[in-house]
Every structure is written in structure tokens, then in C-alpha cells.
């Protein structure tokens, strides 16, 4: 079973619809037991870093996500679901993130418009993640909507970058953990192919 973690953060059903379109049966759930027993976990998110962390803590899902990631279950974070993997964000000073990855999130500085909204071209930095087959097929534009971006302490965890008046983190990877700042479920064929590539990858994606 594929679990999509539902913790009240935005439009999570579009992820479910995209997975259904590529033939995967994924369930929206906030049940810890279901998430812990899932074969794959999707961690989507839109909204505020602080509010979402509060919601995860209140429901105990923060520890569930840490457990799932640490035991090597294939894990796909999306958008805020990437940012929450880090230790902190300027969006919510003093609020600890999940801390699965070292680093923090920063706001795009002026004069860059925020949110960054639209399709941006992505470049692979660290080969070996499920984004590779998609990019090597020539489909390298993905849809982004975000005001904050992750700054990883360990550059080897940055799987892909894109450019918004300077490079920023477009995807991260550590073992079976993969997360995208962009929305694969809204990135047309490129995004659907990425989801399919993720579904086919073994745990070492």
C-alpha cells in the first residue's frame, strides 16, 4: 500500500489523482499504523512551515515520518514536504523541522518575486535518483510554487537544482528518501514520468 500522508496541508488529492493516473493505488491517510506499514510513503504539502510542523507534532505524525524515513521505506516529499525534512525555516523562526536532513530554508530575496510561480528548468547535481530517467529523456521543466527554498548543509544531498536569479535546491535525496521542491503532480508528462520512475525504483532510488 502507498500512503499519502494527510495532515491538513493543502490540496493533497491532486497527488492521489496523479498517482492513480500512472496506475498506482495510493491512499490518503493520517493513521500512524497505516503509514508505518506502507510500502511507500508520499509526504506532500502546501502552506506554512510552522503551522504544518505544529499539526504534525500534535498528531504524532512527526515521529512516524522520522521512523518511516529512517527504516528506509521509499519516501517522496513534495514542496513543503521537502522543506519540512530540514531542521528549520526562516518562515517560522524557532520551530524545529523534522531534521531528517541538515540545513534550513530561506526566503527568496528581493528583487526576486515571491512566490516563484511557474515552470523552471531542472539540472541534476547528484546522479542516481529517480529524477534521472526523466531528465535524461529530455523533459526537464517542472512546475514550482514556493517562497522559501532549502539550503542543505551537505551538498551531496542536493539531487537537482534550478535557477531563479541564482541556483536553488530543486530536489534532495538521501538513500530511499527523495523530495522535490516542485510539484510532479502538476508538471504534465515530466511529472507523471517522474512519479512512475519513483514507483519503479527500488529502495535505493
Amino acid at each position, binding site marked *: 500500500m502507498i500512503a499519502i500522508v494527510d495532515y491538513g496541508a493543502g490540496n493533497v488529492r491532486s497527488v492521489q489523482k496523479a498517482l492513480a493516473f500512472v496506475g498506482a493505488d495510493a491512499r490518503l491517510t493520517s493513521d500512524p499504523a497505516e503509514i508505518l506499514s506502507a510500502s511507500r510513503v508520499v509526504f506532500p504539502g502546501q502552506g506554512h512551515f510552522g503551522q504544518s510542523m505544529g499539526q504534525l507534532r500534535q498528531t504524532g505524525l512527526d515521529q512516524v515520518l522520522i521512523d518511516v524515513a529512517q527504516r528506509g521505506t521509499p519516501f517522496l516529499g513534495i514542496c513543503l514536504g521537502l522543506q519540512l525534512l530540514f531542521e528549520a525555516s526562516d518562515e517560522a523562526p524557532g520551530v524545529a523541522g523534522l531534521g531528517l536532513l541538515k540545513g534550513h530554508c530561506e526566503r527568496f530575496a528581493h528583487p526576486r518575486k515571491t512566490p516563484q510561480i511557474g515552470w523552471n528548468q531542472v539540472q541534476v547535481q547528484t546522479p542516481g535518483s529517480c529524477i534521472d530517467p526523466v531528465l535524461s529523456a529530455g523533459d526537464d521543466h517542472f512546475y*514550482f*510554487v514556493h517562497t522559501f527554498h532549502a539550503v542543505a548543509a551537505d551538498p551531496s544531498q542536493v539531487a537537482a537544482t534550478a535557477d531563479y536569479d541564482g541556483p536553488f535546491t530543486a530536489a534532495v535525496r538521501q538513500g530511499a528518501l527523495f523530495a522535490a521542491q516542485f510539484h510532479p503532480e502538476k508538471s504534465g508528462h515530466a511529472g507523471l514520468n517522474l512519479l512512475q520512475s519513483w514507483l519503479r525504483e527500488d529502495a535505493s532510488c
Partner: protein
Amino acid sequence: MLTRRIIPCLDVKAGRVVKGVQFQGLRDAGDPVALARRYDEEGADELTFLDITASSDKRKTLAELVERVSKELFIPFTVGGGIRTLDDMHAMLDAGADKVSIGTAAVRDPTLISRASARFGAQFLVISLDIKRVGDRWLLTTHGGRTLTDVDALDFAVRMAESGAGELLLNDMAADGTQDGFGIELLQAMSSRVHIPLIASGGAGTCQHFVDAVSQGGADAVLAASVFHFGTLSISQVKSAMASAGIPIRPTHTTPLASGAPA
């Protein structure tokens, strides 16, 4: 690099697309899902559905449309037309819309956007402003341009950005429907005041108009209806012209879906 977006707009009435949309070989020209797919294949970066249904069960038909589109279309889409309350917005989010476009309701109740942004996030909110130049001022109009207000459009736009709007859709009423080009002066005035993405709307007639809206007006995205509906221009033509002018665009041709996925 962040690319500039081309957004076709479809007018919808009772769940069907109205206005002739000219795609060769497409039999049912009124089916929003079929048309959305065609625009997607042509390279549209997003789509907007504008509901012009007058009847009272509008919200239900719009929600049904959004539900159908969101199951089969995996590029962002916005719905607009008579969305006035947080409940209206929630119904659209629930049905699968990525964004809502809000016009008159935001002008009537400026607190609506801060409340909506706190609940749904800035990424969900496109504020659609119909603007008319009166002397040396830019003033807001409501009800599709029929009612002129005394509200300064630039000040209002700044306020909307501060309230948590994600994007502004700007329609210069003098340019709308003329096919003589987008209102460049309005775009320039807004670009110097507002630091959220701007979508130019109203007045597209040629590829050069799209180029000008971006390179002169500073638009981040361009929305058009008639030129695409009537086949005057194709999205790929517009994108080629933009690319030739040095504007970053998403290439029209994407790879096919990997095998295993339904076509």
C-alpha cells in the same frame, strides 16, 4: 531559469465550453476536458476556466467540471467566475482546482483575501483586476468593467499582495477585446509597485503582443482567449516568437508518457 507562462482561458457555461474553439479533428468542441487536453498537448503552461453560467446552481456545475478536469489534466488550472466566499473557494479546492480567480468580491471586501490566504495559502489566490485609465489615474472597475469605482488600482494591488494574494491578473479595459495588444503602460506601472507575479490579460492579437507584454510590460505570464479559440494563433507559434525574442519558455514538445501509464 523560470519560464514565462502562456495561459489559454476557456469560457464555460453550464459545464460546457462556449465560444468556438478551433482544433482540427476535435468533434466535441464543447467538452472542457477534451479541450483542456488539446491545449496541454499544444504546450499550454496552465489553463483558466472562467464560468459565465448565470444560474443559481453554478457552483455545483463548476465543482463537477473541476472534478473531471483534475482527474485527467496534470498541469495547473485556475477557476474563476462568481467565487465570492471562503466556502466557494473551499468547494473548488476540494474538487481539485489549483487556484481560484477572484474579482469583484475582493474589491467589495478587501479582508476576504487575507482570510482566504490564511486558510488556503497565497498559491491558491489569483486576484483579477479590471482596470480603467481615467485622466492620470488607474481605477478599478467591477462587474466585468461595467461599474467604475474610485479605488486606485495600484494602491489596491499593493494591498492585495500584502494581504497574501499569490498573483495578479491585470486587464486593461481599454485594451480588452481590441486585439491591439496588452495594456503595456498598466503592466509597467504595476511592475514597479508590486512584487508578486503579474499575468497580462486582454488585447492579444499577434505574437508580438505577447512578447511586448513580457519584455516591455514585465509580465510573468500572459493569458488569452479569443486568439487561441479561433485559431488565429497557436500556443507553439506564440512560444516560438517569445523564444526568438530571448524570453525563456517551456518547450512545447514534451516526451510521451512512459509505458504503463494510461494514454
